[in-house]
């Protein structure tokens, strides 16, 4: 979908935004006319030209689809299809082609809004680039000896190009400097703005007096390089923001409300206290409430870290975020929206986050030293020359030269260039850097704390040692489990299929929600389900029980499935000399088994959310820099308390919001690499600062002494910027 180029040129950002809005409206109108709906899928697996073609061709082959386009950068597919096409159908289609796919809530993705600021910046960058190149060419003539009227003419043409460009392209700096000054602070943009305005002012004055030196080219190059840094910075953040938005869009929040007419699907935000809500098996509780009808089992692992499903019956209270497993439940809402237990956790998070706000990035620390230094230096140069020569014109010229030479071109590029390269590399490995200073903090980490359920494990249990079980019993268990979506049933089903066991022939299969499944097998009653229901003694481990007729029930034990790369990640972190810990809300035997399996020496079980956060605070107080990796609501406070935190994309929204880095894939192994990349990135940033400092030490005395001609300024500024950018790119090519 491309919008038509409009010949109108607008003078304000709002005007240029208007065509985009009309475009969007027209596109929607066109769709409405055809009656087509637009669906968006997240397809994280596409990575090559063949994938694009395969997915697009596969989607287009569907009769209801009129257009399909894959965006490889965002790893998204946009589908225009007949209104009766369900997203589930499209997802099945893409998954049939061999790619993972998830539905995206198109309303949560404001594609145009995030893009507008980037486009505006790119436009300013383009204009500054155009102008600086032209003025630079004109300046070459002056440097190579144009004199008198020719030099004046070149200066005037340069001024004619430079003035409108400076007015248009420099706006982001002026705005930022103005805001800083109004709140009585100094930031990097204050010396930048001063340098630009002073350079342009003195150059105009010089030109009017047909002087030798004009700094139009230097001012424009300065704007160009700084805008390039600004744009890189913006792009890195925009990618992170759009990916974060995408994660939110993945959760389409809907609920089924029961009213007089029956069930209606409503947005979760519309639910009120007292509403009766139907939660189907496999669904998450949208609100806090009390069960008024139905029995089932609940998976509370996201809230507490426990893997063992708990029984749920009438009158029991449930909290938002719990997963309903077996039977349909009807709830009466007792708390909705921000009153739910999910949101109450936010208070804990706010307290914990106060500590993190104290972190100052390397760039801010540099700016704090830099901005006052530059002003003092140029003021001193001005005063010195004014007193020494008594000539206002020379003194102003020298002050402008000092400001231009010291202007943080290299500094402005030093950090964005490195973070862009590093974030790009991490993004390719499936890590999304959400927070601006997360990379720097990640580089300092010396202790890594893992959560167990949902982080190191996938949350889907596997049957332990199915080979050791009686095949006949397993075939009965498989037959009983076949129709259920309970995670333990799925585990039995998978195990039986792997061993090639055909399910036994059962009759009268009946699922008893909250308890298990029973059936008739050769005239005997067989049951698969909870300990109490099958007459067995409960085990400390996750287990389900199979009762064949009158015999003693047989325990089927389950172990957590390790997430891909979990073992490698722990191994790599330990060999990198980091202390690794496991803190979980699950029962001690399960946590101990997991710690021994992965070779994690320190572990803590049955940790409450506050306990986790307190433990991390303890470690922090002991001077350790903690990286917390967790996914559940019970980890949220710990994630915010840690120096830096990572959560997998499967985590709850609250946990993702609290963490600095989101792991997009299912694989955990990039975590160790991320630490190494972050360290290398921080090293590059420091190197870049050193390069910029050396350059200033060489160039500033020249400027103060009045030897910095526009030629020297142009050469020094460009070469330092280019060296800094090249040094940043070394990160990408360097290791692996």
């Amino acid at each position: 979908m491309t919008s038509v180029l409009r010949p109108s040129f607008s003078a304000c950002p709002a005007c240029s935004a208007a065509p985009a809005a009309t475009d969007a409206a027209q596109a929607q109108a066109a769709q409405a006319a055809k009656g087509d709906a637009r669906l968006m899928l997240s397809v994280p697996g596409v990575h090559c030209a063949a994938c694009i073609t395969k997915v697009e061709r596969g989607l287009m082959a569907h009769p209801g689809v009129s257009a399909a386009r894959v965006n490889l950068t965002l790893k998204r597919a946009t589908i225009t299809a007949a209104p009766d096409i369900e997203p589930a159908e499209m997802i099945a289609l893409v998954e049939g082609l061999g790619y993972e796919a998830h539905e995206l809530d198109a309303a949560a993705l404001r594609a145009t809004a995030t893009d507008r600021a980037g486009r505006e910046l790119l436009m300013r960058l383009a204009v500054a680039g155009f102008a600086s190149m032209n003025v630079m060419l004109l300046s070459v003539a002056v440097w190579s000896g144009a004199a008198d009227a020719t030099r004046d003419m070149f200066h005037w043409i340069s001024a004619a190009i430079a003035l409108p460009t400076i007015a248009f392209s420099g706006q982001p700096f002026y705005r930022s400097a103005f805001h800083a000054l109004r709140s009585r602070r100094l930031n990097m943009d204050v010396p930048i703005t001063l340098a630009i305005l002073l350079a342009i002012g003195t150059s105009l004055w010089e030109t009017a007096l047909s002087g030798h030196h004009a700094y139009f080219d230097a001012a424009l190059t300065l704007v160009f390089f700084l805008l390039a840094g600004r744009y890189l910075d913006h792009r890195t953040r925009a990618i992170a923001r759009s990916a974060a938005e995408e994660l939110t869009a993945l959760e389409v929040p809907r609920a089924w409300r029961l009213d007089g007419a029956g069930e209606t699907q409503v947005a979760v935000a519309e639910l009120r206290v007292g509403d009766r809500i139907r939660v189907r098996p496999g669904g998450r509780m949208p609100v806090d409430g009390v069960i008024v009808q139905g029995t089932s089992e609940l998976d509370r692992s996201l809230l507490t870290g426990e893997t063992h499903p708990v029984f749920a019956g009438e009158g029991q209270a449930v909290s938002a975020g719990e997963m309903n497993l077996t039977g349909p439940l009807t709830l009466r809402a007792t708390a909705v929206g921000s009153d739910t237990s999910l949101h109450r956790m936010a208070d804990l998070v706010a307290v914990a986050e106060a500590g993190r706000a104290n972190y100052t990035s390397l760039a801010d620390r540099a700016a704090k030293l830099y901005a006052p230094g530059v002003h003092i230096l140029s003021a001193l140069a001005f005063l010195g020359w004014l007193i020494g020569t008594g000539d206002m014109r020379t003194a102003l010229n020298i002050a402008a030269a000092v400001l231009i030479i010291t202007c943080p071109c290299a500094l402005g590029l030093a950090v964005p260039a490195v973070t862009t390269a590093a974030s790009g590399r991490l993004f390719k490995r499936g890590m999304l850097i959400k927070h601006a200073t997360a990379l720097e903090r990640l580089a300092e980490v010396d202790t890594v704390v893992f959560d167990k359920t949902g982080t190191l494990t996938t949350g889907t249990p596997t049957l332990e040692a199915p080979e050791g079980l009686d095949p006949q019993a397993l075939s009965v268990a498989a037959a009983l489990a076949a129709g259920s979506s309970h995670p333990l049933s799925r585990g039995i089903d998978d195990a039986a299929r792997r061993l090639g066991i055909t399910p036994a022939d059962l009759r009268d299969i009946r699922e008893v929600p909250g308890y298990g499944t029973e059936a008739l097998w050769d005239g005997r009653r067989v049951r698969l389900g909870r300990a109490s229901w099958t007459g067995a003694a409960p085990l400390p481990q996750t287990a389900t029980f199979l009762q064949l007729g009158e015999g003693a029930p047989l325990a089927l034990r389950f172990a957590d499935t390790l997430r891909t790369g979990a073992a490698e990640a722990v191994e790599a972190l330990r060999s990198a000399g980091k202390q690794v810990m496991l803190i979980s809300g699950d029962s001690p035997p399960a946590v101990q088994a997991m710690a021994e399996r992965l070779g994690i020496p320190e572990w803590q079980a049955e940790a409450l959310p506050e306990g986790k956060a307190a433990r991390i605070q303890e470690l922090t107080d002991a001077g350790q820099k903690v990286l917390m990796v967790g996914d559940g609501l019970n980890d949220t406070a710990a994630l915010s308390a840690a120096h830096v935190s990572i959560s997998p994309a499967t985590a709850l929204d609250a946990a993702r919001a609290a963490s600095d880095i989101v792991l997009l894939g299912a694989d955990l192994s990039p975590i160790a690499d991320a630490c190494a990349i972050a360290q290398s990135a921080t090293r590059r940033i420091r190197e870049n600062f050193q390069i910029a400092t050396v350059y200033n030490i060489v160039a500033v005395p020249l400027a103060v002494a009045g030897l910095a001609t526009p030629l020297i300024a142009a050469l020094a500024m460009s070469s330092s910027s280019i060296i800094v950018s090249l040094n940043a790119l070394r990160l990408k090519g360097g290791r692996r």
Partner: protein
Amino acid sequence: MNILVYLIPISLFLGGIGLAAFVYTLRSNQYDDPEGDSRRILSDEWDDHPKP
């Protein structure tokens, strides 16, 4: 030096064409999917006839 009367406007005009072309690409969403576009050229999907 009278040649400058032609040369300077010509050079500015040529540069302006470049700027206008960039503005066009920016407005027609050509930077939305840089990675995808660089790979699409490798696909043989529309080699025989252009995309309708």
